[in-house]
């Protein structure tokens, strides 16, 4: 699995100063490589190692093999977190895609104030998760703007029925701007002459969109879907802040990363938490492989 690095420039053989160049090269990459090995590669292996131990507050208490994994399989809380994460993913991915596509198509028009609209649509994506969650807590509180406008009296984030859907809506709104950027790049890859042909054939904008733009965006849909799925499985900040780390009400917003966090930090069961991390990693890894295998080569274009 060699990474393609283009070789150009000087001929390779008998190059004067090759030894010195190599030394300088090692010197330049020394610190970055140390960081990557120490804080990325080693932790990945260390996570696998920890996941095979009964590892509590006093450190490793014995190699338990795959027992942490089988424990996870039977753990109702972990199962609940998987269910919540899947449910969240199932709703948030289509919502993000639809919103992102809508915004991209709008901004891609031949219109005035393009920069303003793009900025406005992208604005929520700029905001930090903590600040945006605080704002959401305010707007969706019982006496908040959202309820007033709709004439309701719901406690969105604190009702088992609406808590996860409310977080889904919140995150669809904040990430739509990012998805818009990816869709914009995909829209620009569609050749203009297709549209000219459609216009000559008398197709209206609605028909043109559904018959031409939408099908031709297939690679774009796929890319955005994978990015969105990977992001959805990592959801944590909003759930943590809204429920104050509990994943409540009644575990309605308890997601996988929250399980990892609480198992490691609150319960201090590092082995179990590491095993959950490995499970999440394997799933995310599969999607990342799909993403890279399908889109890595397009970068040259």
């Amino acid at each position, binding site marked *: 699995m060699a*990474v393609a*690095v283009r070789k150009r*420039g000087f001929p390779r053989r008998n190059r004067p100063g090759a030894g010195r160049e*190599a030394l*300088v*090269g090692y010197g*330049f*990459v020394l610190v*970055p490589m140390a*960081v*990557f*090995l120490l*804080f990325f590669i080693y*932790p*990945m292996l260390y*996570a696998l190692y920890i996941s095979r131990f009964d590892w509590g507050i006093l450190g490793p208490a014995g190699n338990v093999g795959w027992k942490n994994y089988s424990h996870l399989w039977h753990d109702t809380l972990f199962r609940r977190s998987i269910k919540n994460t899947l449910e969240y993913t199932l709703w948030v991915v289509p919502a993000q895609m639809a919103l992102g596509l*809508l915004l991209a198509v709008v901004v*891609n*028009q*031949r*219109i005035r104030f393009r920069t*303003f609209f793009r*900025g406005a*649509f992208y*604005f929520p994506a*700029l*905001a*930090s*998760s*903590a600040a945006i*969650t*605080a*704002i*959401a*807590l*305010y707007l969706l*509180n019982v006496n908040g*703007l959202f309820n007033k406008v709709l004439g309701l009296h719901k406690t969105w984030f604190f009702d088992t029925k609406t808590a996860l859907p409310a977080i889904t809506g919140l995150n669809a*709104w904040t990430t739509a701007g*990012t998805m818009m*950027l*990816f869709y*914009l790049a995909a829209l*620009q890859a569609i050749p*203009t002459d297709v549209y000219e042909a459609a*216009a000559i054939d008398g197709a209206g904008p609605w028909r043109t969109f559904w018959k031409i733009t939408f099908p031709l965006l297939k690679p774009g849909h796929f890319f955005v879907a994978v990015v969105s799925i990977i992001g959805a499985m990592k959801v944590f900040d909003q759930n943590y802040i809204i429920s104050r780390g509990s994943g409540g009400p009644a575990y309605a917003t308890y997601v996988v990363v929250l399980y*990892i*966090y609480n198992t*490691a*930090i609150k319960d201090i069961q*590092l082995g179990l938490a*590491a095993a959950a*991390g*490995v499970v999440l*990693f394997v799933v*995310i890894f599969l999607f*990342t492989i799909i993403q*890279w295998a399908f889109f890595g*080569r397009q*970068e040259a274009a």
Partner: protein
Amino acid sequence: MAFEPPAPPLAAVEELASGGPVAAGTTVAAGIPGRARSERVQRLIAYTAMFAIAVLFFVPFLWSLSTSLKPLPETAHFSLLPHTWTIAGYREALTQYNFGRYMANSAIVSAAVTFTSVFLASLGGYAFARLRFPGRNILFFIVLGTLMIPDQLRLVPLYRMLTIFPLTHWNLIDTYQGYWAIRMVSAGALFLMRQYFLTIPRDLEEAAKLDGAGYFKTFWRVMLPLAGPALAAVAILEFQGTWNDFFWANLILQSPPHWTIQVGVAQFSFTYGTLWNDLMAASMIALAPVVLVYLFFQRYFVAGVASAGVKG
């Protein structure tokens, strides 16, 4: 099987960010006779819809901004503008509730991370783009491999490592150093720099070499000044990422004197959840730096954010 992480078409995104030519794929077809009227109607509908969406996207922020300028009793009222304008929310947040301190902490770690990331990523990116050394491809493969390791997997091992650091047994939990160390440089930043250096023609470097400049001097005096846009994109990407970060800050910077502003906002909402004017003031302070950076450097920002897709 050779693969590299998907990078967005930076040229397209940058053109877009700089308000370049209208993209291909617009659905407005001009020049068809008899269509002018219906097109005008369509356009009117389109503008109305767009303003409606833009308002929907902005209203939460405007409402929160307005609340941050209201006295507490007024936050229960349903009015867009404050009756009594006051900066009491900001004053209380910054002094009484220590957000001045949290802001300073955020500034410290963001500056440290941004500075080292830009320097180390350009140094490493240059070596991978230009210098030849045995094992370069394997090392670069490792760099790309780190992009595949999600933070959620690193949570447990890094927490353990920072509690008792290997060999030295330092406890780096609740220290700026611990937070800074794990974010010192990112593979995404290094990858972005390498890609940019690859696009710079070799002539200038060779001229510098003929003049007797060493490798570091060539890098520092010739290549870095040419890499301005990429440096800006990396700096902005890292600044935004660190300033906005909650996941690692919440894990590592645990005690109130070390909280960043994002942790401070979350903790304030835990404890004083209904002091809405103060909470919104704190949130506005937490948003402001990134929004300002966006307003002034939008062009680089969009390029950087688009390349953040690399991070997966």
